[in-house]
């Protein structure tokens, strides 16, 4: 029987602040999982630490709430051991691009077949609103004693440069569009990254829902000018179509340039997609031919409680 969105909800009380952008992301994930028809016990949500870390408890699949900055390490280990699993890792921008930035870059190089979603709000919410890596230099959100002294990380640009093979941005108040992006990301063959703009109503008084909606840009006729626009509606083609250096470089450069757009016009949608680069599982298969049929988690390691691994040829070579 096909599962509905409700089947992916748990009865755990959700303690995010009223109006939090995170609600839209969890809803979008649950909608996407239902629409894709994944099996609950073949799916795992891995999360980091912070408000977004609680996500795994709200979704009725396997849920692994890990450590600050380390979500990708746990998630990749699980996926490599059991490649049958559908794995979605989630975390905040402080989690993934501050303390976890090293893992972010290394994960891109590895290109393990899974999805990573960053809840990007520019602040460390759970510790009362300090500046996070995506907050712009000189900006001062409401609990900062003084303006931010660090330059911001560009999540899309960093992902593209690190080797992620699917790089997109969503907006937490456009749940349907986000749901579609999540489905594309999960179906992508390789490591997919989704940067989700997610207003923190409690601590980020700059990048608010109204700001994204462009209420400050209304013209005299009271017409809204949402800052957010969709790449796919403007003829943007993110995909690497053939395996040539010039083609790849052009798409990479295009994504990088697009990622710099900010201010009155903020693009969402898919920035970059490359399925020509092999995912990590394929790279392992090149070394271990039956890796996918007999991955670590499926292997039979004993017979009647005794080791069934035959190491005699190695011992023979060591024998004198």
């Amino acid at each position, binding site marked *: 029987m096909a599962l509905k969105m409700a089947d992916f909800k748990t009865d755990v009380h959700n303690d995010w602040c009223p109006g939090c952008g995170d609600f839209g992301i969890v809803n979008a994930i649950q909608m996407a999982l239902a629409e894709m028809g994944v099996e609950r016990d073949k799916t795992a949500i891995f999360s980091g630490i912070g408000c977004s870390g609680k996500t795994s408890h709200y979704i009725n699949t396997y849920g*692994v709430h*890990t450590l600050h900055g380390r979500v990708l*390490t746990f998630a990749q*280990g699980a996926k490599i051991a059991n490649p049958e*699993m559908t794995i979605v890792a989630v975390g905040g921008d402080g989690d993934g691009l501050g303390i976890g930035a090293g893992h972010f870059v290394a994960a891109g190089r590895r290109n393990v077949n899974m999805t990573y979603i960053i809840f990007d709000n520019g602040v460390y919410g759970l510790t009362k609103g300090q500046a996070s890596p995506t907050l712009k230099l000189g900006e001062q959100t409401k609990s900062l004693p003084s303006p931010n002294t660090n330059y911001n990380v560009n999540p899309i640009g960093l992902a593209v440069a690190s080797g992620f093979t699917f790089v997109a941005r969503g907006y937490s108040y456009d749940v349907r569009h986000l749901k579609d992006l999540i489905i594309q990301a999960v179906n992508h063959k390789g490591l997919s990254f989704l940067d989700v703009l997610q207003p923190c109503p409690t601590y980020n008084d700059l990048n608010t829902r109204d700001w994204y909606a462009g209420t400050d840009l209304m013209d005299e006729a009271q017409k809204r000018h949402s800052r957010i626009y969709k790449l796919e509606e403007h003829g943007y083609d993110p995909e690497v179509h053939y395996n040539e250096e010039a083609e790849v470089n052009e798409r990479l450069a295009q994504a990088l340039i697009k990622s710099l757009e900010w201010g009155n016009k903020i693009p969402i949608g898919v920035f970059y997609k490359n399925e020509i680069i092999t995912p990590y599982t394929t790279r392992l298969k090149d070394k271990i031919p039956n890796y996918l049929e007999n991955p670590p988690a499926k292997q039979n*390691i004993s017979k009647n409680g005794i080791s069934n691994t035959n190491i005699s040829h190695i*011992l023979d070579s060591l024998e004198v």
Partner: protein
Amino acid sequence: MISTDFTWLIGGPQGSGVESGANIFSRVCAEMGYHVFGKREFYSNIKGEHSYFAVRISDQKIHSNVNDVKLMASFDAETIFRHYDEVVSGGGIIYDADLDDITTDRVHTLDAPFRERLHKTLESRKKPFSIAGVLEIAKENGVKLYPVSFKAILEALAEETENSRLKGLVRMFNVIGVSLSLGLVKMPPDSLQKTIGTIFSKKQEIAKINQQTANYSYNYATAKFEEFPHTLSGSQKEPGTLLVQGFQGTALGKMACGCRMQPYYPITPASDESVFLESNEILEITDDRPGSTAVIQTEDEICAMGMTIGSALTGTRSATCTSGPGFALMTEMLGWAGINEVPVVITNYQRSGPSTGLPTRHGQDDLLFSVFAGHGDFPKIVYASGDVEESFYDTGNVFNYADVFQVPVIHLMDKFIASSVVTCPRFDPSKITINRGKLLEKIEGEYERFAFTEDGISPRSRLGLDNGIFWDTGDESDEKGHITEDPVLRVKMMDKRMSRLDLILKEIPEEEKAVSFGVEDYTVITWGSSKGPILDAIEMLKKDGISIGLVQIKLLHPFPGDYVTSLLKDAKTIIDVEANHSAQLGKLFKQNTQRNIDYSILKYTGRAMTSTEIYDSLKKIVENKAEKREVLMHGA
């Protein structure tokens, strides 16, 4: 029959083939039926710094090195400067005669503190600061000198074989050194030819050149060298003898016991184990399709540990292998594995700390750190193996502990074991039992990962198992695994997890907790690789009519205080022997047995203990001439 106890030392700049020379020598001796105990010392450097290999051989079982070198083969000046005084009276030094005039200031890799000490010695003996100077001292010490021009050997060989390429082939110096040595001790030459053939079996051309060089050098020694008092003609070979490198014990143990995932980050002296596992990543499985170990090189040790835990959550037996600095980075995750009851194994090949310390040198520095690693209270096991043979079987055991008790296990190894090359009986994989504990194959009905049970251990699901959904969190959690801050549930969960420490002490068999090699009035306690030199020292003391006991403690956390106390009830004087500064085992022992250590013998030069120096200290203790804290210093 006169028993053989012979130490051969070869040295040279790193990258010059010291290791492969020692490999040939060790293999020849092992082939000829000798017990072999070899140890490699090297700098944190790729090329140029001094490295050496001391190979001890005997017709008796041996567990360590001794101070006395009987024969040294050197093809560079530095080896002579650093080791001339280790060669005993009646021993010999084979050296390159072209080096005679080299002065200490021409060897740039002689570091200042060493050079200063050497100059002092040379000054007091009124010798020049040169190879000729130190060799004069050696000669006065009763050492026989065997000068030979390595270059002239190559030239003559080139002429004889009509292969002019050989003339300048300095990388043959190691084979020349080995073959001259074997010729000098009259080791049957066939074994040398056979061994070179085996080592280079995949490179026929290289094998041939090496065999020619070996043959020529061997004959040179027998024809031209003056008589040497020691001969090695072979011993009774025991069938099924392995010549293994120290790190291969845990690696083969992991293959045999079903470890199928090993993420790691490169670090000396641990990486060799992972590289060996990856070189053998495809595994033959009896009556089944091939298996494999996924060995993943990660971006840091934090990722290595995270991947190991992630993999373990899928039910895969998973481990990582590291050394002290890497283990330090893993400790936050160790707590996560603890609170989430995840079975993982961390193999820690310790080296000398603190910080980067002596990165390529030995130390048993991480005992207390391992026992107390991680913030907060959570159960874990710390277990230490005493040698490579033990480490194979112990690896099987530690994975069982991890699975049965659902705790992280820190398996302590060290650099001494990692870089030793020893003969030992062939490993028997049929002795590796596999107990996955409460890991579930199938789940029907309601499931709670952290359900309360009589023994405090919950049935364990795994990612991907039908009907087995659970949640993990580093926060305190309820039975399903969801976050809780309820004080009552917190206490129940904490008590459940921590009750495992008692269960571990109850369930692990006594012989796996600690091993008694006899208890006497004077009894040594130790852990890890110090066991070998202590055992050999005890044998030496026996010949003097002195009996010393030994208890090797293997389970270090939770500490088997009652069992160790009962083992030691007849011991009057307790001597703690270990390779660190603060007598870490001694502290743990006192804490858990309320008994004091009477003496400690410690070494933290970064070099492994020799049985000779332990013998000396133990003898002083028995004769009541020892310091309470004996510090050992031998070794270059």
